[in-house]
């Protein structure tokens, strides 16, 4: 069994240890005897969204994002139909914002996004930065050891969700999507967006496995993923939950 994981624009969108997510997905496949095939795709490369199992889009600086939106816009309909058919996508920070309708700059000017997700982002005046703990919504993930996601956010854009999508969960510590409504991230079909940047998946193995399971299901396999020894993953996760929620 093979799973194809595509890291989009790793040369341009690679901030804060984004590659940790690819490493986590690949390792968790390998440890279960599934062969991970990692693709790296950059500007102008051919992309076969239907053929891939998991698409990862990381965060970048504003300068790079402008170029990337244009490049992605050319592939918008392909990406949209792959998503309709269950493609698993994890998009973080800048990647998350790009999938939405628009990004409104401080001066009011709007940069168009791909419009795949019913979300929009408005430039904020202060940076939302720091550790985050999110309580996952039951509809996103219920039967897992952890009910939480832990990570670090650093963004000034404030993202709001429309009716067509649901948040990943409720912020227990930190700011989340916009610092106003205590929501963090988004889920729409098998597309997940979040502001928890960088190495999100290593410390949230239950979330990593959710992505893998959904990808397997899309390929028609309904076997459960074998359990792994997540001793260190769990320690790293619990240490942050304990430390942060003590002060909440």
């Amino acid at each position, binding site marked *: 069994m093979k799973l194809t994981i595509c890291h989009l624009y790793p040369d341009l969108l690679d901030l804060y*240890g984004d590659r940790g997510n690819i490493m986590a997905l690949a390792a968790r496949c390998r440890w279960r005897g599934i062969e991970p095939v990692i693709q790296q795709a950059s500007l102008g490369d051919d992309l076969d969204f239907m053929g891939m199992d998991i698409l990862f889009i990381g965060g970048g600086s504003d300068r790079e994002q402008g170029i990337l939106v244009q490049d992605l816009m050319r592939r918008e309909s392909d990406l949209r139909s792959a998503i309709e058919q269950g493609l698993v996508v994890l998009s973080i920070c800048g990647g998350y914002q790009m999938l939405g309708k628009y990004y409104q700059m401080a001066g009011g000017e709007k940069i168009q996004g791909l419009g795949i997700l019913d979300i929009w982002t408005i430039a904020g005046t202060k940076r939302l930065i720091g550790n985050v703990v999110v309580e996952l919504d039951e509809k996103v993930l219920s039967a897992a050891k952890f009910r939480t996601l832990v990570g670090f956010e650093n963004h000034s854009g404030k993202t709001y969700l429309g009716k067509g999508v649901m948040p990943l969960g409720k912020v227990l510590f930190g700011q989340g999507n916009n610092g106003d409504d205590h929501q963090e991230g988004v889920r729409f079909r098998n597309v997940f967006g979040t502001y928890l940047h960088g190495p999100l998946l290593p410390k949230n193995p239950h979330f990593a496995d959710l992505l893998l399971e959904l990808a397997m299901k899309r390929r028609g396999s309904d076997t459960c993923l074998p359990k792994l020894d997540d001793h*260190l993953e769990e*320690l*790293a996760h619990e*240490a942050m939950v304990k430390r942060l929620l003590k002060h909440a």
Partner: protein
Amino acid sequence: MKRTWRFWVALWAGKIVTMGLLIAGKNGTTLPGKIANWLDPQIMRHLSVAYTDGIIMVTGTNGKTTTANLLANILREAGKVFAFNQAGANLVTGITGALIQNTCWNGTSQASVALLEVDEATVPKLCRQVSPDLAIITNFFRDQLDRYGELDTTVRLVRESLPKESVLVLNADDPLVAQFGKDHAEALYYGVERTPDSRSESQETREARFCPICGTALDYTLFHYGQLGVFNCLGCGFHRPKPEILAENIRPEEGLLLFQVGVTPFALALQGYYNLYNALAALTAARQLGLDEVSIQKGLREFIPQAGRMERFYLPEGEITLTLVKNPTGFDQVIQTMLGFEKPLRILIGINDLAADGRDISWLWDVNFERLGMQEERIHQVVCAGLRAEDMALRLKYAGVSEEKIVLEHSLTEALNCLQANRAEEAAVFILPTYTLLFPLREILERHQNGAGLSTSQAKDRGEEANA
């Protein structure tokens, strides 16, 4: 420019506070600098005129402190008296404080030269008041919390603020630094021919290797580390300038780095090729200042490392090297240096996430720990300590270090005991902390070293400072 009454009030207030701190047993420059700047926002300008033989500035992402200290050591060997913000106080307040310390009550200076280590973001503020005669730029890397955008901004601000009449001392191998020479009348370049670890293919993919001038992907014939190497832009023709000071025949030997510039051999009392660049920057500046070759050679060979920069301790169980880690490029270099020892390794990594360390530890996933994983058999033990010990342990698991070799220990004393227990005679032992763990660890190590009575004789044998 005429000195105003504000200047005198600020200078004297600064000197009184400095004295007060000295009486209290402290040697701070930040508080006096803060007060003096508040009283006279132009004080740096007025203080700087006292340095008739010039002002030397050192800036860049990594290696500022080491480069400035190497140059200071050479200046000392050459018998020069100079002002220096030695404590690493490299923001406006610290620089002002150091200059005040060096200025007499009547406004004259004991020294004719000032050597200033300046934080990259402080360069624009400094250059509004002070015009450096010599500006040394080490390198530009993404630091812990940097985004590319922020690094671009820093580089641009430094570039725009440097006065046209400053002579630049530039790293030829770093395209981000070398570009500074393009619009500057006088620039001197230093670089390396090749290190034993230089490669024609790069294994690190994360640094943006795009031409800083036109944005085209750069073509490299040789990579030294990070984006440093022999580059050429196929888009606009920008290429690695020919270095005036070129290090050749580079080889590590018994804790030293040996190299040659022209026909002159040099030995540097530091390890790691990043330190070679620091030495070359200091050497280039020293030659430009007209210092004699013997002082330069001696200054590099007999250099005493700063606290926590490849600093060695001699304990009853054997030697330990302590070195600060704070960003991916620096950490990658430390890993390369450790592997270069060709000995079994015992390592303590301490990761904190307090403000001075950087709150975000995501950068650990950008460090190439896989190189440790690939030489797993040489790793005897890695002890993970600090507030983020668990994150560090997890990172090592993904890098391929087997879990039996990873120890989690939050207490520093226990972590150190663990590292020293069962150590094999021939093992190389390293302690790698982030900033807020450096000084507590250093204290423990000094106590053990002094308690064992090994400090003076053994340390002196190696040309190290006895921690008396």
